[in-house]
């Protein structure tokens, strides 16, 4: 995977993106705006399931009206996120917060998959009964917590506290970030 990241970093477009004066900031700004769209609309979709907002609308109605915006936000967020990764692939791949973010996205994705699979089957029943199972309410809250953590870890990627070129780092950090370090250089320093 690290070799692939190195190969990506040497492609013409990756270098051009990385070195561009305006394109990279524009992509990052679009990424932030799409996060607002995605997270902001997801907030209402998830809170509807906890009976906190839009109680006059049925669950299926709420999903029909808001979820397309959430999906659109997610798509823009993913495309711009991939471009941001592509601009600095090696640094991102070895960034601990990037890795945490990816794990959180996978967990949030699994939660969303089961959440929506069940919702698509049972939403009409909940609409009629006006009662939503407790497990679904928990899943909605879990979704919001997970995506908040995705945002937090995403923001932390910009900081280089644990980057490979900042040594010495604890060994476990270097292992978590796949940093290749010659520890003989740090002999005599506490912890090495």
């Amino acid at each position: 995977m690290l070799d692939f990241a190195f190969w990506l970093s040497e492609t013409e477009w990756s270098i051009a993106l990385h070195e561009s004066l305006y394109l990279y900031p524009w992509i990052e700004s679009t990424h932030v705006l799409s996060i607002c769209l995605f997270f902001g609309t997801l907030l209402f979709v998830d809170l509807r399931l906890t009976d906190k907002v839009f109680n006059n609308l049925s669950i299926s109605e709420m999903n029909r009206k808001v979820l397309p915006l959430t999906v659109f936000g997610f798509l823009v967020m993913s495309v711009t996120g991939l471009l941001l990764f592509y601009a600095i692939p090696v640094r991102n791949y070895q960034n601990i917060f990037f890795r945490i973010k990816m794990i959180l996205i996978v967990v949030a994705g699994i939660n969303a998959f089961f959440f929506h699979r069940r919702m698509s089957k049972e939403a009409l029943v909940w609409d009629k009964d006006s009662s939503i199972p407790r497990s679904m309410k928990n899943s909605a809250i879990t979704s919001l917590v997970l995506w908040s953590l995705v945002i937090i870890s995403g923001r932390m990627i910009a900081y280089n506290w644990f980057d490979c070129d900042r040594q010495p780092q604890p060994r476990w950090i270097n292992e978590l970030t796949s940093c290749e370090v010659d520890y003989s250089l740090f002999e005599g320093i506490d912890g090495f």
Partner: protein
Amino acid sequence: MVSKELIDIFYALEDTFIGEYVRSSIWLFPVIESFHLIGLGILGGSIVIMDFKLMKLIFRGTNRIYVLEQTKNFFILGLSLLILTGVPLFLSEAVKCYYSRAFWIKMIGLVIGVLFVYFVRNPLIVKKEGTILILIGFVSFSIWTVVAASGRWIGFS
């Protein structure tokens, strides 16, 4: 153009206890910044839902006053979180902000946006009907998009 009086105030703001405290910590600025982004998301959600409703892009067939009632508290929540986190972020680098064009665009946009929401958009949602509301939704959404985008550009300056 640099104003001697104003820049002195910004230097004084940067020297406040909060400014120095945030600046002296490695973690505090990024953590506050993360919650700032979450606040932006909450505010963004309330803006998108209300303004898109006004532009007739979503919630067709739903009463717009009901949509306003459901989103207005999230606007306040998002804005409060933005201000609560934005102030310490600003104090930690007030002088940099002074020289940043994006900061001034954001601040002016923020003031216009809040005034527009409370003195134009929300009252007109209750009082008016028809195509004027589409325009109101578009203007509100545009202002807040500028606020969010220029906020990100402060980091690039």
